[in-house]
């Protein structure tokens, strides 16, 4: 049953060094505040799982939190490369990063299998590709048609972390808009943290909403603005300028570290981080 606790406490209690951790949110509701808290608490040797390891994982990888990355598309969407991810893969900086990569369909099948408690999921796009040789792929034969179908391992993280618009006081969570694999990662993880924009007295039913009952969640933590620079449908828009600017910040090791120091390590939480960003005009980056 979900406890409503501060994010610092949720991360301290629930995420351990060496854990398999999935921060999900497909272009929307990306749990940046939770990523920052992992960095502040200096988690190490994490196996990070995420379909689209964009800026949030560039930061975790650059800060040396990760040992391995399981993913399907690692770029800065609409901008270009993730320089910290590339630096880790191409130059082992700050440390080597093991990769396990799939297609989006393969990751989605792995998450769905994890939520459904199947040991594997099926995917029909790997035949003939080099993916099969570089990643964890098996094959099964259809007992009815004989067809060979690729199998990917179920994804069952130690900790699943997502951001949502709302929770009620009992810890039931509601999110809407593009919902990605959020339901799957919460249901498929041993422990889960959901950061939310706000806690409200009642969750009104809405079109295209996903509801996660309190009894499926370990911790709910308020983190208003916690998806920045991604967006929270109905709350705030995507900060596109940030994604563009990140290309420059992330490109240089020193500049990256300096930025992380000031914006993440030197801030206590998402509120301080957001205040710092809001003051940008008088105190330029």
């Amino acid at each position, binding site marked *: 049953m979900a406890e409503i606790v501060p994010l610092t406490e949720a991360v301290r209690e629930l995420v351990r060094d060496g854990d398999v951790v999935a921060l999900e949110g*497909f*272009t929307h509701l990306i749990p940046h505040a939770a990523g920052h808290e992992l960095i502040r608490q200096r988690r190490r040797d994490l196996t990070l799982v995420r379909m689209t390891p964009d800026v949030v994982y560039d930061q975790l990888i650059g800060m040396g939190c990760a040992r391995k990355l399981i993913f399907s598309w*690692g770029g800065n969407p*609409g901008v270009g490369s993730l320089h910290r991810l590339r630096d880790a893969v191409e130059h082992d900086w700050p440390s080597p990063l093991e990769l396990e990569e799939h297609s989006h369909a393969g990751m989605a099948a792995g998450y769905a299998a994890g939520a459904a408690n199947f040991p594997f999921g099926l995917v029909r796009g790997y035949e*003939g590709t080099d993916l099969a040789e570089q990643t964890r792929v098996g094959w099964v034969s259809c007992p009815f048609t004989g067809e060979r179908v690729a199998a990917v391992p179920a994804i069952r993280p130690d900790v699943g972390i997502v951001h949502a618009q709302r929770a009620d006081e009992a810890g039931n969570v509601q999110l809407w*808009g*593009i919902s990605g694999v959020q339901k799957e990662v919460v249901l498929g993880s041993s422990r889960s943290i959901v950061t939310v924009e706000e806690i409200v007295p009642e969750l009104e039913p809405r079109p*295209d909403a996903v509801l996660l009952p309190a009894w499926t969640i370990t911790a709910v933590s308020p983190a208003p603005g916690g998806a920045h620079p991604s967006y929270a449908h109905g709350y705030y828009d995507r900060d596109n*300028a940030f994604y563009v*600017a990140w290309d420059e910040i992330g490109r240089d090791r020193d500049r990256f570290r300096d930025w992380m120091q000031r914006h993440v390590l030197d801030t206590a939480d998402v509120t301080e981080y957001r205040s710092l960003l809001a003051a940008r005009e008088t105190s330029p980056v």
Partner: protein
Amino acid sequence: MTVDAPTYTADELMAVTAARRLSDGAVCFVGIGLPSRAANLARATHAPNCVLIYESGAIGAKPRHLPLSIGDGELAETADAVVSVPEIFTYWLQGGWIDVGFLGAAQIDRHGNLNSTVIGDYDEPKVRLPGAGGAPEIASWCRETFVMLRQTPRTFVERLDFLTTVGHQAAGGGGAGVTCVVTDLGVLEPTPGTGELRLTELFPNVTADDARGATGWDLQVADDLETVSPPSAGELEALRALVPANEETVAP
């Protein structure tokens, strides 16, 4: 080119060329960048009933401005339905409902196979690219797949550094594979029988030798090589009206 003809960029003609190939009502699986511009241009011109599906789960999105990410809020806002990511890849893409999928890549070979994973050796990559994303399944399951990328000897290669996506029909999916490659020089299409990509259309002021020179394999040229018409004034106007919204942003 006459004095009065509108000027345009190669990107613009690429978008226009791809858009013209979409029939009205076509169900398109769309990414960001040129493919999104092409599909939205089609919808704004000759194919108002073109259906846009984004891998983020937005089905029937009707964006009023050009989305900046495949998960732009505008897509969910204007979609007929929003489904989960596992569902979009299983029930909708693999289920066989998509007419045309769009892909880019870092490398393509003569069979339409694509690399979006690494340049160089996998374990010691020279350049680590973003990876597969939705590409392998898009090329397998859309009835047709259009590839859009600039043509250079480094992108049109004899041998891929990594085969991320099978581009030819033999992939075993339900679709025809890559049926059209739109470059900044013209259009390549599979040769009937062999499936090898050959040059079938050239952009204005480009020669077949230009295209051969920009290709890392011995590019074959169709006998009935055609020239792509430049964008009409109407196409250009519609294309240029497709801009991202001016959103409030906080610079980092």
